[in-house]
């Protein structure tokens, strides 16, 4: 009987172990869940390679850290913030839209807007009817100047 109880206790423990393991496995975040966050992050070493596809050992460890944090119940925002706190804003695919970083987002549209204004003002100017064109344009004068110089050059070569 005692022996039976020992076996039962052993089996119970073993069962418990397996159950715990199975529970842990079902709670382990999948690669896809990890990659969904990793693809928005960049490690400071691997330039221009998102974390989800970076093959280095360091990036592999970062991905495992994300997995651990997800398993601990941390949200995507919390995990991202952890990496920003540790390594700075450079780990983000884009800097946050706040403070001095706003300049990064505002400058291109401002320059493009200036381009649009210049283009439409020029187009308006150009399409305005103008006074009669002088008989000989500046380009023609230039051409004649060129021809005379060219002829001079030819004479020299002869």
């Amino acid at each position: 009987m005692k022996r039976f109880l020992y076996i039962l206790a052993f089996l119970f423990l073993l069962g418990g172990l397996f159950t715990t393991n199975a529970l842990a496995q079902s709670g382990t975040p999948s690669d896809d869940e990890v990659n969904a966050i990793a693809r928005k992050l960049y490690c400071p070493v691997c330039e221009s390679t998102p974390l989800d596809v970076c093959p280095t050992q360091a990036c592999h460890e970062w991905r495992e850290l994300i997995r651990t944090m997800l398993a601990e119940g941390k949200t995507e925002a919390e995990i991202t913030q952890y990496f920003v706190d540790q390594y700075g804003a450079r780990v983000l695919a884009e800097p946050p839209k706040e403070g001095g970083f706003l300049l990064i987002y505002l400058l291109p549209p401002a320059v493009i807007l200036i381009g649009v204004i210049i283009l439409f003002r020029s187009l308006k100017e150009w399409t305005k009817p103008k006074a009669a064109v002088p008989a000989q344009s500046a380009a023609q004068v230039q051409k004649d100047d060129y021809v005379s110089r060219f002829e001079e050059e030819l004479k020299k070569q002869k």
Partner: protein
Amino acid sequence: MLAEFGYGILLVGFLVTVYSLIAAIYGVMDKSAAMVESSRRGMLLVFPLLSLSAVSLIYLLVNNHFEVAFVYEVTSRSMPTYLKVTAWWGGQAGSLLFWAWLLAAFTSAVTIRKWERDIEFLPWVIVVNAITLIFFLGMVVFYENPFTRFWVVGGNVEPHMFAPAGATLFAAPDGNGLNPLLRHPGMVIHPPMLYLGFVSYVIPFAFAIAALITGRTDDRWIRLTRRWSLWAWLFLSFGLVLGGRWAYDVLGWGGYWGWDPVEIAAFMPWLTGTAFLHSVMIQEKRGLLKHWNMILVILTYALVVFGTFLTRSGVLSSVHAFANSPIGPFFMGYVALTLVVSTALLIWRWPLLQGETEMKSMLSREALFLLNNLLFMSVLVVCFWGVVSPLASELFTNQKVTLGPPFYERATAPLFAALMFLMGVAPLSAWGHSTVTTLGRAMWKSALAAVVLTIVLFFTYTQNYIALIGLFLVALVLLVTLQEFWRAARARQRAQGENFFVALSRLMGRNRRRYGGYIIHISMMLMAIGILGIEIFQTETQGALAQGEELTLEGYTVQYRELASWPDEGEGVNYTRAVVDVYKNGIYLGELTPRIDYYFDSQQNMTIPGQRSTLKDDLYVLLVDWEDVSHAGATFKIFVNPLVNWLWIGSLLFLIGILFAAWPDRDPAEEPARSGASRNVRQASSAD
């Protein structure tokens, strides 16, 4: 001995270029045709000199001369001979020599043309080419010398060109080997194509500067360099496409374009070059935009040098690395000097560059081309700022930032959409004058058909509104362009009584630039289908599998069968290859073999995907990880990339289109010049 010869001949080439520069300037100042001719012959001599130097370097590379530092860095005994040759441009010093060698070749090609009609351009073209060549050769001769050798000095191994006192030559038993990522066939051709594109743009720039200095600011310089511009664009485009295919095949992240600063460095001159290709037509047809064309060609040249600087100075890793780089500050200084001098010349000649006619309508083809230029410049602003702002942030705030794909995609997507819309409208507008009514009448059928097609796609394919807008634009441009082919060929068929296909081929042959351009527009739309497919509809999953287990995605089932790992000592690689079986909706499609190649010499992995390609989609399987000994388990990442093959089909058609437009027939330089203000404005769009 050969290293000394290679370096010596390089030095002679450098000195001959300096002589040619001085002789050309002296020839102009002293009005001495003999000195200009002497300078021309000097430039002709530089190419064979640099070729000898290049052959010396190739000999050293192929024959494992590891006493030469450059040979040690980029080759190893296990590399095949063809890779040892291409290692010439696989490292900094060699690639700078390669740049200079190409420029010397192009300069020779330019200087041996017939110069009778354009003799006054000659000395200034030589001056610009010589200055560019001196800059690059100077860097090779004084800072990045590929012939530097290792010497044992006081027990230490140091790189020097010539033996320090008491030093003995040191040769390592084997070299580092070329970066394995650069051993792909696409990467073997990709850098020379980009460099060919980069260097070709020096020639239009040289003629533009010659036109500014001589004051001969009509469209002659544009006609003389039209073919150079087209070939430059061809090479640059080909280089970009090859780079995309290489990234897709080798980098193992399931994409073709990552908005990486190095990619953008090559993309920026392509943007200004494309804008230039369109805007020169306005100057040729209407005598307008002379200032703008000068600005574009100057910008393109500056961006070519800037692009080389970005990739070669180390500035992208860190601004501090740039400051420590021996060539970084020189590059920066040269770009700045180029811009300052070119701008000063432009301001000096500004009054001579006035338009010869007026712009009549906001919807004329020239106005729409201008809008096209604005859009290309807007994409350039985004790209330039995207590359420069992280550097500026690091420099001024000491805080590094990353600008990844989301930044570029959000900023450029509307600009590309607007460019696509223009591609649909501009071919229907007329030079000189168009109205909403004439444009509407020309395009309503195509627009209506595109709307119907979009509605069908909404009910049968996707409800994603971004994809639908993109596909509507694709349909519009394709229909408008095909209609243009149809309408013109039918008109010729009726007028000449020819068979439709004869009429079409003669029509296209008579106006290669126009119809080559239309082929390019069609190819762009095919590429847009591929880009929309992968950007919007790409799906992926990753998982660790035991043998016999499977992953499923978009109807595909990928089942892990086996894995093998074996070294190839001769090649210096360890291959780890998995075999997976692929099923689609239960039907067996075959096996794929994703693998990881580990290169012993450089201690680097290369991830080669297993791919199954159809016109509908690509199944792209990557081996991520595996159990070392038993191989019982392995981790795979799989992507389904819908429509991506249209990107490659479009790329091929794109190259055909450029070749068609650039193929030599009648030399544009021999065409009669546009007669300026006296010319009547042609109204019909088909008249060009």
